């Protein structure tokens, strides 16, 4: 135990640098996946066959490719096409795209759960498709979508560790580097696990808060 505490004091500053990158990757890819997911979902429910077909196809392609392969593709293959991304950019874009498929399905489920009468009421006061979405459907869908959205946040936090495979020195990679140079596997990976857990707990509480709020409605 004493050893563990000593190791903690020694390694924590280095691991905290990794935490910073973990947070950057998580928040960056969360934002990107939200924007893309909403775009795919709106295309899917647009009623325009070309758009909904395109979105459906995209979602299936994205879902069918492992995140790690997507990251390799962006980081190692794209330079061959003249698009050179930094490791951080590639990881945010890769995770953002990968998760946009799940976000899209989540958003679509929320949108489709809204009573058709709401849409008809909006139409009868002269609202077009976009105004109906913005003023009537999306504000109500948010309440349905938030609990699963919180779960996606937790999954993204953990999956941000996949950025380590393309050299982003986030928490998992920092841990691995320290462990392989000091051989203190137990201390280091226990610390890494505890730090992920510490970051997850506020998110878990947030999801519970969303769920309680949704259930009260």
């Amino acid at each position, binding site marked *: 135990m004493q050893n563990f505490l000593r190791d903690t004091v020694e390694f924590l500053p280095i691991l905290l640098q990794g935490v910073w990158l973990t947070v950057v990757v998580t928040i960056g890819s969360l934002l990107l996946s939200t924007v893309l997911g909403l775009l795919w979902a709106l295309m899917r429910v647009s009623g325009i066959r070309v758009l909904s077909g395109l979105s459906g196809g995209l979602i299936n392609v994205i879902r069918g490719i492992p995140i790690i392969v997507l990251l390799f593709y962006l980081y190692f293959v794209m330079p061959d096409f003249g698009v050179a991304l930094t490791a951080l950019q590639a990881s945010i874009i890769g995770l953002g795209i990968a998760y946009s498929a799940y976000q899209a399905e989540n958003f679509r489920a929320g949108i489709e759960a809204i009573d058709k009468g709401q849409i008809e*009421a909006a139409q*009868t*006061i*002269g609202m077009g498709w976009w105004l109906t979405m913005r*003023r009537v459907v999306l504000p109500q869908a948010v309440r349905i979508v938030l609990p699963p959205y919180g779960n996606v946040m937790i999954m993204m936090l953990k999956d941000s560790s996949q950025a380590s495979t393309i050299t982003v020195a986030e928490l998992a990679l920092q841990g691995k580097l320290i462990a392989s140079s000091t051989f203190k596997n137990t201390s280091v990976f226990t610390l890494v696990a505890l730090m992920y857990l510490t970051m997850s707990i506020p998110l878990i509480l947030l999801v519970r808060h969303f769920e309680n709020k949704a259930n009260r409605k």
Partner: protein
Amino acid sequence: MIELTNVHKRFGSNEVLKGITASVEKSEVVCIIGPSGSGKSTILRCINGLESYDSGDILVEGARVDNKAPSIVAIRTQVSMVFQRFNLFPHRTALENVVEGPIYVKKEPPAQALERGRALLAQVGLAEKADAHPGQLSGGQQQRVAIARALAMQPKAILFDEPTSALDPELVGEVLGVMRKLADDGMTMVVVTHEMGFARDVADRVLFIDGGVIVEQGAAKSVLNAPQHARTQDFLHRVLHPL
């Protein structure tokens, strides 16, 4: 102001409207009665383009209703609709429900729209409920807010789709009272209803629809008190003497 000429509509293989021809004049109150599934609601839904129709013509103030054309928005702002299940926006207050259309569709200045919205809520007897959400209101109150929301668009006509069918019996009167006042003020109204008392007292004309066709129509009192057609007689008998 509303004219239907030989309107046909089918859902799959089921033809629900089989050549409806009817018209509604300005300031007229027309009640549509008939058994469930006879096509009553479908007529209303076709008039403001919630459903498309397969053939025939529907004209509102001379403009053809086509729910694929951009002109449908203008028609909908002239012909409001009140639904059986109110369909208020649950995430907005009563007042916000009322001013939603004026502010976001008609682009009225918010201050002016809010002032008129409050006046409309007062008109339907709900001035003190302006800040309540639909979930905090009774069915009758919700339907009155829905009527205020329809009026806020300053429509030339209002379509009512069984406005009291989802209400507890003791709440029906307050909604019919508001509708009667509207009729007295000269609002053009098309009302699909099972409230025969309302139809007799308030409507100028009654259409009896069965099986997608207008079986009988005429002045409200004559259709309801002395129906000519056997199907109308049978329907009215069953509605008025259910036991």
